[in-house]
């Protein structure tokens, strides 16, 4: 799984895969948050419409979720975009996407008429009403999220720049290879 990294493959992967995926996923999350934060009332109504939480007994939870989710999207999206705590941000976004998929499936199988409000009032690829399109879109977005959790934000990231003496595993592997030493690729030691 963790084959030795060369400067070329490491830089190429970072420039061609990790950076674009971070920009895509982080940008989408920030766009979603940008549309939701000024419209918390609408987002709360959308969460209520999903029917996951009972409005009679869990109205406070719905309101808390309506405030926290957009801010989480904004912070995680921004961190992923700049590559700071990139793995954590990608993991958070991945978990959020899984939560959204569960909610969407609840609406679909519960035959509920609900608006997605995934990107606030804006629609990306799919329409506003919940359907399989949103499930597939979120499943597709899970791929880059999972990849970034696995591989990290890459060299073109603040994580890499700030690592300094406390170098990331990738940096350690690269420097060890450059000097010709044997690299311990055991991920548990990373």
């Amino acid at each position, binding site marked *: 799984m963790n084959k030795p990294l060369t400067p070329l493959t490491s830089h190429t992967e970072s420039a061609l895969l990790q950076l674009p995926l971070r920009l895509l996923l982080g940008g989408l999350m920030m766009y979603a948050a940008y549309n939701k934060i000024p419209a918390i009332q609408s987002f709360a109504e959308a969460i209520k419409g999903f029917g996951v939480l009972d409005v009679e007994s869990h109205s406070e939870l719905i309101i808390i979720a309506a405030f926290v989710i957009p801010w989480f999207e*904004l912070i995680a999206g921004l961190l992923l975009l700049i590559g700071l705590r990139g793995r954590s941000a990608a993991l*958070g976004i991945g978990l959020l996407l899984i939560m959204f998929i569960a909610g969407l499936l609840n609406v679909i199988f519960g035959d509920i008429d609900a608006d997605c409000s995934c990107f606030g009032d804006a629609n990306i690829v799919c329409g506003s009403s919940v359907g399989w399109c949103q499930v597939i879109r979120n499943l597709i977005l899970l791929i880059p999220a999972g990849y970034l959790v696995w591989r990290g934000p890459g060299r073109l990231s603040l994580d890499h720049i700030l690592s300094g003496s406390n170098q990331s595993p990738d940096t350690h592997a690269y420097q060890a290879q450059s000097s010709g030493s044997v690299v311990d690729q055991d991920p548990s030691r990373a």
Partner: protein
Amino acid sequence: MRLIHTFTGLLTIIGAAFLFATAHALITDPVNIDPPPTNTGDGSVTPRDPGGNEPDVIESPVPVTTNDTPDSDLPDDALLDAPVPEGMLTLRESHSLFMQDVYFIDARHEHEYEEGHIQYAFWLPSTLFDTDSDRAYGVVDSMPPDATVVIYCVGGECDSSKNTARRLASHGFTDLRIMGVGYAEWVEAGFPISEGVEP
């Protein structure tokens, strides 16, 4: 070690999100998702023009598909009195209110509204207050707060009508009613409809 680092990072992000969300909640308007205060039945109403003057003319800018249905030619009772969720209007009650010239609000999506809506109904989904507040308040300001307002969406347990009713209640509207059936049933009954956008 990496795993712990990743999870502590995630907890940091969650903590930061809660912090910003709390600050946001303190400075913004309260969020309300309680059931809206609505009236039922077609009893006492306040129509568009309670003073008895000429009613406000709300012209449809596009050709109107109108099926003005005389009372003697109403559809069968099964459709008119079809069961609706508690506290909502049946099709018969909704039509009765329409004939009394009350305000109707369409809370569905814009494209659904433009494809066809109850004649003279305004388009006002609750999200419009956030996305185009000028347009939303244009509709709100065109109706007196004590007027009878009937709100509809696709019918049944769709939330859009309730969300719009909640917004209107927060703006002082006191006689809000929700159609328990949807636009499709209204069309099926052959009641008056329009296409395009009401001014």
